[in-house]
């Protein structure tokens, strides 16, 4: 087994809905994410991009096929074990950043660390400050997340996704809610982290320019990857 492979999925099948409205959302999707690479999944709305992302992120379970993280099959583990894996190995970034409004920027970044429970309160504070510093928000640690701009909130979400130093970062339209400048800045930041720290990033995007900056582009259509190409 290749040591640099962070995540693989093989022949993923997923049905959504019930009876008449039941659709075959994923039809045998296979994918490999190596450390230090950025993957883009592109395709029209409803082609199964987000469904794939949630299955790879262990938030949803496939009806067929398998997901392996760090050589360990994980797709059919019990719910508590899946939650532990998510906490330890996966970082999520969502289009609408999804911060906890009642918490400050620093507290938001500390939430995954609290669950992991490896660091003391002071260590967590210091690591959260470090991560927010890295995304350019060192001066706004104590600011309530609802008082941050959209771009700032997305950067907090990026810092939060990195809080537990996960091997895999999954991003669902991470720049979909940002202007051009902020989109570029967020992408550059993610790309730099992935390359410097040996993570794997899979992002779902509708933005062709951003997709073209990724190492791999996987084109999806009707629940299948119809084309996968590496950036030259």
């Amino acid at each position, binding site marked *: 087994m290749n040591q640099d492979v962070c995540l693989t999925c093989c022949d993923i099948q997923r049905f959504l809905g019930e009876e008449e409205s039941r659709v075959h959302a994923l039809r045998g999707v296979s994918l490999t994410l190596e450390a230090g690479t950025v993957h883009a999944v592109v395709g029209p709305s409803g082609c199964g991009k*987000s469904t794939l992302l*949630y299955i790879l*992120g262990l*938030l*949803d379970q496939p009806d067929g096929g398998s997901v392996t993280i760090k050589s360990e099959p994980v797709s059919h583990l019990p*719910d*508590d074990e899946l*939650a*532990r*894996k*998510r*906490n*330890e190995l*996966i970082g*999520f970034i*969502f*289009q*609408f950043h*999804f*911060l*906890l*409004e*009642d*918490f400050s920027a620093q507290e938001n970044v500390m*939430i*995954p660390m*609290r*669950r*992991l*429970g490896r660091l003391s309160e002071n260590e967590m504070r210091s690591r959260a400050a470090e991560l927010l510093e890295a995304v350019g928000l060192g001066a706004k640690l104590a600011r309530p997340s609802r008082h941050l701009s959209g771009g700032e909130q997305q950067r907090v979400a990026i810092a*939060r996704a990195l809080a*537990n130093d996960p091997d895999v970062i999954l991003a*669902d*339209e991470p720049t979909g809610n940002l202007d051009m400048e902020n989109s570029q800045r967020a992408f550059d930041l993610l790309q730099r982290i992935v390359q410097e720290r040996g993570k794997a990033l899979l992002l779902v995007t509708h933005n062709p320019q951003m997709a073209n900056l990724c190492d791999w582009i996987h084109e999806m259509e009707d629940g299948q990857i119809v084309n996968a190409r590496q950036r030259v």
Partner: protein
Amino acid sequence: MTPPLYIALRFLSHRKRAFLLSLCGVIFGVAIFICTQAQTEGFAQHFIDSTLGSNGSLILRSRFQPLGAGLPVPPKKTATHHKATQRRYIEGITNAREIMRVSRQFSNVAACSPVLRGTLSARSGFENATVDLFGIDPALHLQTTDLTRQLIAGTFEDFRDNPASVIVGSKLGQELNLTAGDSVQLLSPGGEYWRFMVAAVARSGVGAVDAGRVYAHGKVAQTLLRRPYPASMIIYKLRDPDRAPALAKHFETLFQHNSQSWQEREAGNLQLFLTLRISAAITVSLIILLAGFGIFNVLTMSVLSKVKEIAILRSMGYRQGDISAIFLWQGAMIAAAGAFLGSAAGALLTWGVSHIPIRVRGLLVADHFLVAWDWRHYFWATILAVVAVFIASYVPARRAALLPPVATLRGSSV
């Protein structure tokens, strides 16, 4: 601090007003529960203390013989449960001294006293009344009852030193216009009036006792009532009155005399007090239950407003149990604060109520609200609040835990 507790505290501060209202409901319920229990038990305890102080914890009465005793063949249908009805009672206690000597060997017996009881007519001026005469041994009766503490006029010494004196119940005294120093006439079964001086007036707090009882010296009572025996009953003061039923049963077997514990004697009144306590507890529990509904609503609303946050937490690796715990912790904090503040408010309310003047003259006698200070009222109020809040929190907490995060994330990302 666990992550769910930390998050619960933050969520709680987000919906302060709603949670404060729920908290007020719990505080109110707990306080009222404590106060009503203190009152109902206060009156019940006062009644028990009064009746024990007047009639003792246990009474030994007439001797009995089984109906079939002495027959060469036992009568038919001698089933054990008919034992009580197949007795022949022989009125009076002829060997009271011997029975008392043996009784005192029992560790639970603190004191005992012989009483000759009979019903007579009393006359004072133009007033007549039927009285319940208790012929007593002053010294022994003093050890067995609270008679001296019950005196509201006159002295016990005046009674003890004068065989031609009596102590009358306070209500009877009012009826016959008697007070200490007056004289009263008692009509003997032979039809002659005996004149007695009223040495003292006693108020036991038990309506029936105060309305009819007259205490006289035992020997005088025996002559007056024309009884061949010196005692018709022995009353006992016990160190542990709660164990009276067991001792009564034992005495009955040992002495072959009808024996009755205070619990059996006052069963009707005790049942009444118990019913009142249960009724009050049920009524007040409804308040706590309503507070529980309030908490249920608040937490359900909280879950609905935090659907997004729950999905985020799940995506970050929080387990279903963690999500559940966040909402259960919120309930637990309301229950803890409600029980603590409610107990304090309950104590304050109980103290306030105990100072409200009220004139009770009936089954028992009191001049203000009677309350009992018992830690068990606080314990049960707390248990009730915790159980109600737990049930109210469990359903929303479970619902929150089972929310599928993907549905929320997918719905928000379109």
